[in-house]
């Protein structure tokens, strides 16, 4: 458990945050320049904020009032950098083993073999970083941070330097990290899809302030909290694979509601989480007929939030979970939408990208 309180004057705005990071993967979610990297660097000890208090597992890492500031090498926080930062003069094996030497004897350690297998880097052990691809480097970076027996893992936009295909490759490894390792992870991102796939809890940041913190489903389902803008908004649903159909669709079930997605590679009965982008959701007062969309969720309006432009964000509570829909003000008025109104949320099967479907990890 990590508790962070920071105050720092940055060019353009003041960073003033206070939040907690429970076990699991917490995404520090916000636009570029919202102060996320400053926060993470302060937690790691790479920079010293003007005022703040950081406590990890009861150990005080920083307390500006008391004058305590542990140097980075004493904090036992594993950091996965955006650019990997592997040591070019060491083999992958030595890179991985680097931190293990400095970890205290009684610290719970990961087994090197297990980590190598988890990250599928067994073939790379005797290679040097100069000979690795971007994705391979990031996997080694994850392993290296993990093997240093940290009490917390920081990841600063670790996928930002990769192209889409590589991102898709690496995301599952972060999912495994989240699901198989007990160490809490603080993950910085401005990409809603990463948040959707990985987050068990979210701290939404805008202009240096915390908009909301809580479980991923809560925060992403809040129409007032759009840290990355309305275009990136989307709620998360937890579902279970029911069966795969012969025509290339997978049927899932969430809260009793059937959902159809393009074929996903998971076994029957496996839990999944999906992110439904708000701008992919159509609302209808009546149950629609003859519509091509296969996913129709009944629900009631939980909240309405007008945006700066012609749009309005509608939060709909369905048996499958909270869904956000972005529609025009005009339509909202035409449909006479108000809190409590009953309606249907409609999502096209094909609009849910494979990248938005992930292994479970509790979202709620």
């Amino acid at each position, binding site marked *: 458990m990590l508790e962070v309180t920071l105050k720092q004057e940055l060019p353009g705005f003041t960073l003033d945050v206070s939040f907690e990071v429970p076990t699991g993967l917490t995404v520090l979610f916000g636009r570029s320049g919202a102060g996320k990297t400053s926060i993470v660097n302060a937690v790691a000890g*790479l920079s010293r904020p003007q005022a703040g208090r950081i406590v990890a597992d009861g150990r005080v890492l920083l307390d500006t009032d008391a004058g305590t500031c542990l140097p980075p090498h004493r904090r036992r926080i594993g950091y996965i950098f955006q650019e990997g930062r592997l040591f070019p003069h060491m083999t992958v094996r030595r890179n991985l083993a680097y*931190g293990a030497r400095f970890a205290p004897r009684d610290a719970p350690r990961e087994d090197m073999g297990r980590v190598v297998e988890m990250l599928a880097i067994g073939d790379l052990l005797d290679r040097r970083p100069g000979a690795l691809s971007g994705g391979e480097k990031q996997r080694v970076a994850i392993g290296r941070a993990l093997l240093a027996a940290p009490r917390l893992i920081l990841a600063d936009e670790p996928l930002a330097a990769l192209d889409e295909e590589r991102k898709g490759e690496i995301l599952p490894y972060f999912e495994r990290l989240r699901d198989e390792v007990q160490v809490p992870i603080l993950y910085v991102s401005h990409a809603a899809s990463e948040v959707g796939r990985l987050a068990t809890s979210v701290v939404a940041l805008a202009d240096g302030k915390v908009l909301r913190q809580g479980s991923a489903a809560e925060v992403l389902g809040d129409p007032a909290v759009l840290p990355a803008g309305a275009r990136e908004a989307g709620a998360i649903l937890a579902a279970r694979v029911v069966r795969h159909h012969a025509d290339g669709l997978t049927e899932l079930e969430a809260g009793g509601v059937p959902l159809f997605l393009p074929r996903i590679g998971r076994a029957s009965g496996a839990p999944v989480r999906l992110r439904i982008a708000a701008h992919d959701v159509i609302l209808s007062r009546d149950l629609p007929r003859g519509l091509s969309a296969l996913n129709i969720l009944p629900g009631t309006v939980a909240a309405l939030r007008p945006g700066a432009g012609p749009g309005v964000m509608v939060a709909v509570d369905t048996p499958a979970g909270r869904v956000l829909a972005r529609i025009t003000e005009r339509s909202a008025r035409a449909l006479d939408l108000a809190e409590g109104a009953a309606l249907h949320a409609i999502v096209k099967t094909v609009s849910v990208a494979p990248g938005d479907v992930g292994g479970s990890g509790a979202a709620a």
Partner: protein
Amino acid sequence: MIDGVTPAEWEAVRLSLRVATTATLVSLPLGVVVAYALARWRFPGRELLNIAVHLPLIMPPVVTGYLLLLAFGTQGPIGGLLDRAFGVTFAFRWTGAALASGVMAFPFLVRAVRLSIEAVDPKLEQAAATLGAARPWVFLTVTLPLIVPGVIAGTVLAFAKGMGEFGATITFVSNIPGQTQTIPLAIDLALETPGGAARAARLAVFSIILAALALALSEWVSRRVAARVGGRDA
């Protein structure tokens, strides 16, 4: 030509090697520390240190030699202290020639090492810190291996400069065969002595051969190390 080499000339060659090697080996650790301090630390007096290190580069060598004489001679504050406390003398001895060579070569060493330290991405050092390495460990395991090519270059440069040092040496410890008469001093003496031209030429050839060997060696080592350090599978 080899037959014409006199014992005195061989002596000058041996002495030059001894003086230059000692000077380089002793100034290496200090040079690396000073280079690191100038490259990575901020402290009051940093600019002064930088200037002090570069003084032998810009002062006339004779002036440097004279200052060494004043400070490290048997009558000087540092020289006298070292003599009384440890029995270490520099005046009129090869140790003084080594000191003169070391001082004159120091700026070259520091510059080369500093440049290579500045080329090391500080982000790598940061990464090492987050993995639990305290500053000395970071230096030993990350910075040092990455600066080895630069250190080699600086060492060879310092060695070559030490082999060629003249003005400060003759002013500080004068010309004493077997103790301070290095190749440059022997050449100078040969040039001033009637009929010494042949001797001067032989010694000059030695000088050139030794310098070329040192350079070739450093190139070879540098290339091998650079490949390993650059992250390519060596």
